C-alpha cells in the first residue's frame, strides 16, 4: 500500500510496538504530527515543554521499563535542545530512538530556516545516527535504529528525516528482520573464560562483587542475586547499579566510589578478587587509578569489549550479555563438586563487619535544628515502603538519595549518572509515571536542579502525572558549595542562589499542590500527606540545613582507603 513518509513513520512505530512518543512539534515535522493526529488512539504523544524534557522523559520511560524510549522533535533548535538528553542517554547506555525533522533535501546545506547538521552535531554522543536521504530507506532505517538502540550495549540512535520525505508517497513494507554486517554484539560469553573465572572465585579469600548499570539494563537482577547468594560474597553496586541486588540484604555493603560507603571502598581496596559485572571502572568509582585495588585480580563481565581494560587492566575478560554470562557462571559453579567454602572467606567477612562499625552514613537529626536532607530521604524510604520509583537530579541530593533510599528492586532508581545532568529528574519522573501509571514516582531534587527543567510542571498537569517532588532546598548549589568548602577555602563562588522563587506558589501557579516543610517534626507527616494525594502532583519544598555535606567522601586523587568520614 502506498503511504506518505509521515504515515510510514507512524506505521513503523506501531510495528515496533511503540505506545508512547515524547516530543515537541515544529515546521519540519508537521506532516509527521498530522499523521500522529490520525493515529492518536494507538500512539500516545506526550507534549513536553522543552525538547530536553522530552528526551529525559523518554529516558525515564526507558530506564524504568528497559524498552526503548522514543522522541520526536523538529529541526534546528528542536534538535539542538535535544542534544543534552541524547548525550545523557549515551553516557548511561539508555536505549532511545530520537527522530528529528530536517529541512527539505533541496535546502540542506543552504543555511535554511531552522537548519542544523544534527547528524554532525550528535555524532560523538550517539550509538549511531542516520540521515534519511531516500523514502525507499525510511522504513528500514527506522527498523535499524530500534535494533541498534536496544541491542548490545544500548544507547541513543538518532534518525534525521527531511521534511519532503515525510510528504512524498511510497509503497510501505516493514522489514521483519534486519541484519547489519558490521554490527553483531556478542551475547554469549566464552565458556573457557567462565571456567577460569570460577577457578579464581573458588580460590579467593577476599573477594567482592562490584556490579553496575549493565546488570539493570540486561534485566539480570535475579541472576545476580542468585549468584551472589550462591557465592556468599560481599556485593557493592555502582550508582547506576543500585537495585540490581537488594540493598536491605546483609551481603550488600553499600554503594562504592566517591560517596560510597566506608565498608564498600575498603572492601574494594583490600580485596584479592574483584568480580566486575556490567560496570565500567568510572573515575568516580575508582578514585585514583594508581591506588585502585592494589591486591586484586579482576574478572570483568561486560557486553562492550571497549569497556574491558579501558581504565583498569583486567585478568579475565568475559565479553557477553550479563544475563547470559551470569547464567553460565551459575551453571559452572553449581557443576563443581565443591562450591565456595564459607570458612575461606569468614575472616574477610569479619573484617568487613569491622568496617561497617564506623557507621559511615550516620547523621544526627536534632528536633530543633534545620532539617537534614538525609533524614528526608530516609523517611521517604519508610513512608513509601521502599517501593517507589525514585528519580533524581544531580548534586548532593542525588548522593543522599543513593545512600539513604535502599533500593531492593532494579529499574527503580532513575538518575543521570554518567553525564550528571541537572534538570534530568522531573522530566525523567514524568516518563516513569507514564510507563507506570499506578506506581508512586518521586523526584528527589534540589533548588538548583529543579529550575533547569521546571517548565515540565505544565506537562505533568496536562497529562495528570502525580509525581511527588522532594525538593531538598538548601539555598545553595550544594555539591559545588561542598567542593568550595573543602578545596577552595570556602570561597563560595556563584554557588549561592540569592533569589529563589516561592516554590509553593510556583507549584500552585502550575496547577499543582505546593508544600513547604521547615521543621524535622513535620517531615514524616508531610510525606504521608503528599503520598496520600494519589492523583495530584505535590511539590514538597523542604527547607534543609544550608551547609550540610555528603559523607563519606573519597577526595579527588585519593584511594579507596583514604576516605573523609565526617
Amino acid at each position: 500500500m502506498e503511504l506518505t513518509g509521515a504515515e510510514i513513520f507512524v506505521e513503523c512505530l506501531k510495528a515496533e510496538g511503540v505506545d508512547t512518543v515524547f516530543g515537541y512539534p515544529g515546521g519540519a515535522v508537521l506532516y509527521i504530527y498530522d499523521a500522529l493526529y490520525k493515529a492518536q488512539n494507538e500512539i500516545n504523544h506526550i507534549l513536553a515543554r522543552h525538547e530536553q524534557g522530552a528526551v529525559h522523559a523518554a529516558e525515564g520511560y526507558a530506564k524504568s521499563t528497559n524498552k526503548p524510549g522514543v522522541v520526536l522533535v523538529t529541526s534546528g533548535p528542536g534538535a539542538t535542545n535535544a542534544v543534552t538528553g541524547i548525550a545523557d542517554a549515551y553516557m548511561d547506555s539508555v536505549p532511545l530512538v530520537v527522530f528529528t525533522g530536517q529541512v527539505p533535501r533541496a535546502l540542506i546545506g543552504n543555511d535554511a530556516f531552522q537548519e542544523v547538521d544534527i547528524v554532525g552535531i550528535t555524532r560523538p554522543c550517539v550509538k549511531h545516527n542516520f540521515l534519511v536521504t531516500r523514502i525507499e530507506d525510511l522504513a528500514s532505517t527506522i527498523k535499524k535504529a530500534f535494533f541498534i538502540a536496544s541491542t548490545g550495549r544500548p544507547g541513543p540512535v538518532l534518525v534525521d528525516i527531511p521534511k519532503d520525505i515525510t510528504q512524498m508517497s511510497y509503497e510501505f513494507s516493514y522489514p521483519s528482520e534486519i541484519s547489519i554486517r558490521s554490527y553483531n554484539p556478542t551475547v554469549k560469553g566464552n565458556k573457557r573464560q567462565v571456567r577460569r573465572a570460577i577457578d579464581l572465585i573458588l580460590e579467593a579469600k577476599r573477594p567482592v562483587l562490584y556490579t553496575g548499570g549493565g546488570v539493570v539494563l540486561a534485566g539480570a537482577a535475579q541472576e545476580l542475586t542468585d549468584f551472589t547468594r550462591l557465592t556468599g560474597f560481599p556485593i557493592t553496586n555502582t550508582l547506576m547499579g543500585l537495585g540490581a541486588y537488594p540493598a536491605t540484604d546483609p551481603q550488600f555493603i553499600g554503594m562504592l566510589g566517591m560517596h560510597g560507603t566506608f565498608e564498600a571502598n575498603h572492601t574494594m581496596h583490600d580485596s584479592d578478587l574483584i568480580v566486575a559485572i556490567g560496570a565500567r571502572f568510572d573515575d568516580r568509582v575508582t578514585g585514583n587509578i594508581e591506588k585502585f585495588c592494589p591486591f586484586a585480580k579482576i574478572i570483568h563481565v561486560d557486553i562492550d569489549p571497549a569497556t574491558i581494560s579501558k581504565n583498569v587492566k583486567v585478568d579475565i575478560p568475559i565479553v557477553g550479555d550479563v544475563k547470559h554470562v551470569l547464567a553460565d557462571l551459575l551453571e559452572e559453579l553449581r557443576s563443581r563438586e565443591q562450591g565456595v567454602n564459607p570458612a575461606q572467606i569468614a575472616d574477610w567477612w569479619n573484617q568487613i563487619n569491622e568496617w561497617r562499625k564506623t557507621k559511615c552514613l550516620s547523621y544526627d537529626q536534632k528536633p530543633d535544628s534545620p532539617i537534614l536532607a538525609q533524614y528526608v530521604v530516609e523517611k521517604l524510604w519508610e513512608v513509601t515502603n521502599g517501593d517507589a520509583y525514585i528519580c533524581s537530579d544531580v548534586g548532593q541530593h542525588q548522593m543522599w538519595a543513593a545512600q539513604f533510599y535502599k533500593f531492593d528492586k532494579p529499574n527503580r532508581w532513575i538518575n543521570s549518572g554518567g553525564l550528571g545532568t541537572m534538570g534530568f529528574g522531573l522530566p525523567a519522573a514524568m516518563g516513569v509515571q507514564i510507563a507506570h501509571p499506578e506506581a508512586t514516582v518521586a523526584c528527589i531534587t534540589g533548588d538548583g536542579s529543579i529550575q533547569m527543567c521546571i517548565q515540565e510542571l505544565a506537562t505533568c498537569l496536562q497529562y495528570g502525572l502525580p509525581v511527588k517532588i522532594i525538593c531538598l532546598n538548601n539555598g545553595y548549589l550544594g555539591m559545588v558549595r561542598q567542593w568550595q568548602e573543602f578545596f577552595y577555602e570556602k570561597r563560595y563562588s556563584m554557588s549561592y542562589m540569592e533569589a529563589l522563587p516561592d516554590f509553593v506558589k510556583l507549584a500552585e501557579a502550575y496547577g499543582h499542590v505546593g508544600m513547604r516543610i521547615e521543621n524535622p517534626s513535620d517531615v514524616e507527616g508531610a510525606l504521608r500527606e503528599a503520598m496520600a494525594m494519589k492523583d495530584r502532583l505535590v511539590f514538597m519544598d523542604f527547607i534543609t540545613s544550608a551547609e550540610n555535606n555528603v559523607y563519606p567522601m573519597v577526595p579527588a586523587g585519593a584511594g579507596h582507603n583514604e576516605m573523609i568520614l565526617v
Partner: protein
Amino acid sequence: MENESGALSRVAGLFSARGYNIESLTVAPTEDATLSRLTLVTVGSNEIVEQIIKQLHKLVDVVKVMDLNDYPHIEREMMLVKIDVQKSGACDVVKRISDIFRARIIDVGEKSYTVEVTGSRGKLDGFLQALHELRVVEVVRSGSMGIARGAVALHV
C-alpha cells in the same frame, strides 16, 4: 567500512574525541562498491592501540579492523614534490636523487621540477632529506596505504 557519507567523519571524530593521534589517513572505495578502505597510521602504547581498535569496532559503519603490525606487511605512500631548480646545478641534483630513490620527474618547468616518489614513509622522509640543499616549493603526500603479505587479506 561502509562506503557511506559520514563514515569517515565518525572515524576521524573518534580519534579527536578520545585524544588519539592521527599520523596519516587515506581512504578510497574498494572493488566492492559498498565498501571503502581506510588506512590510518597512529602511534600509541599497546594498550592504547588495543583500545583504539575496540573503539573502531564499535562504530556501526566500521566493518572490519586489522592491525597491520600483527602481520608481515607492505606499506606504501605516494609523494609529489615540487622543487625550485633555478639554482645552478639544481636540475642535476634532482635527477640524480630521483634515480637513487627510483622517483619519476613528472613535470618540468622553467623554474621547477615536480617529482613523484613512492615508498614507505621512511623512504619518503629520506628523499626530502636528500634534497636539503634545494628549495622545496611544495609537498603533497597521500598518507600510507598498507596490505598484508601472503594470503592474509582484509575482506568481508
